[in-house]
């Protein structure tokens, strides 16, 4: 079996309206890639049911090195947390091709 390598999974859930902005931030900060999914849920900023364009959430997932993931998380915190519905978390994942992330 191939050796597994440890990388960081950064998961961001936020207002769908921020998607393009955050994607350009990710690009600028050097994220190797990301996956976006439309999601819905509820939190302390109320229910976001995803019925229509102003009401949806998006989940962005980035697999990268620990240092970059932390840098992105700090940027998101400083730039968006105060005014927007947003959460993000980091977790450890195993990948097969470390050079990709």
């Amino acid at each position, binding site marked *: 079996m191939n050796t597994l390598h440890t990388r960081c999974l950064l998961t961001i859930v936020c207002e769908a*309206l921020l998607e393009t902005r955050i994607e350009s931030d990710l690009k600028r900060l050097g994220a190797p890639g990301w996956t976006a999914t439309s999601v819905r849920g509820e939190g302390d900023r109320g*229910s976001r049911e995803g*019925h*229509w*364009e*102003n009401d949806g959430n998006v989940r962005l997932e980035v697999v990268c090195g620990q240092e970059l993931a932390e840098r992105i998380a700090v940027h998101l915190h400083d730039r968006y947390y*105060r005014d927007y519905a947003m959460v993000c978390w980091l977790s450890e994942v195993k990948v097969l091709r470390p050079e990709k992330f």
Partner: protein
Amino acid sequence: MGIDPVVYFFGFGLIAGLLRADLRLPGPVYDALSFLLLLSIGLKGGVELARHGSVDLLWQSLAVIGMGVLLPLLAFPVLRGLGRLERNDAASIAAHYGSVSVGTFAVVVSWLASRGIQHEPYLALFVVLLEVPAIIVGILLARGWQSGVDWQDMGRELFLGRSVLLLGGGLVIGALAGGEALAPLEPVFVDAFKGILALFLLEMGLIAAARLGPLRQYGLFIVAFAILWPLFSAVIGILLGHLLGLSPGGVTILGTLAASASYIAVPAAMRIALPSANPSLSLAASLGLTFPFNILFGIPLYAEIAQRLGGS
């Protein structure tokens, strides 16, 4: 005279939503409906625009843009003074009420058609013209001239937002192609219009019901504002329509547009430009109250005033 059947669909959605029924239109279906609705309105307006374009129309357009600037300027001091709202919230709500709701426009056009009341067929142009000015005024009211608004980014948001783009695109295509060339597209954009509108309104009823909940925590002022302000702004729209020499049907439409509040384009723009303004406050007012009020009670009332004014 009975109620336009499309309004029953809205009522149905509203009641189902209030009963917390597990009814929802999938997001992509809602997107497709709103695409069709906006394009249909744009195309129809564009065809008529090419037919009726004149210098008069230019003056009318400028006056309508003026109204789009004036309405938020009038609403802002009321929201600040009487409502004691924070600056950003007042500016954001003023922008919502200065801009327009395409859904309300579709309902008033359908209402007039069902009663055989004629109107200038190119008024979709006014919907496009009224969407943007109030947003700019709202941002300026909140942040002033020297603020750090990224206008380039904001311009994208304003002019490349779905409703402005699709309505505007429809207008241009309609004007370029003309009615005859577009005839083969009619099954989708004309014949199906009422059915699409009915489904759209069903979904808007469900969404409006969800918006009514938060109203309880915002107090009486915002409820009163959401009902009374449209009456006041409708009078401004009606008087302007009358001054511009529109037919009673056209006056009704301009009155309804002035009374309507945006719940799609403006909330998205305000979220970016004034992120600290509370989005659920303005949406509760515009979508939870003003939209139902206008389509259930406002439109017949504005039509009545327009008819009397026209008959005098």
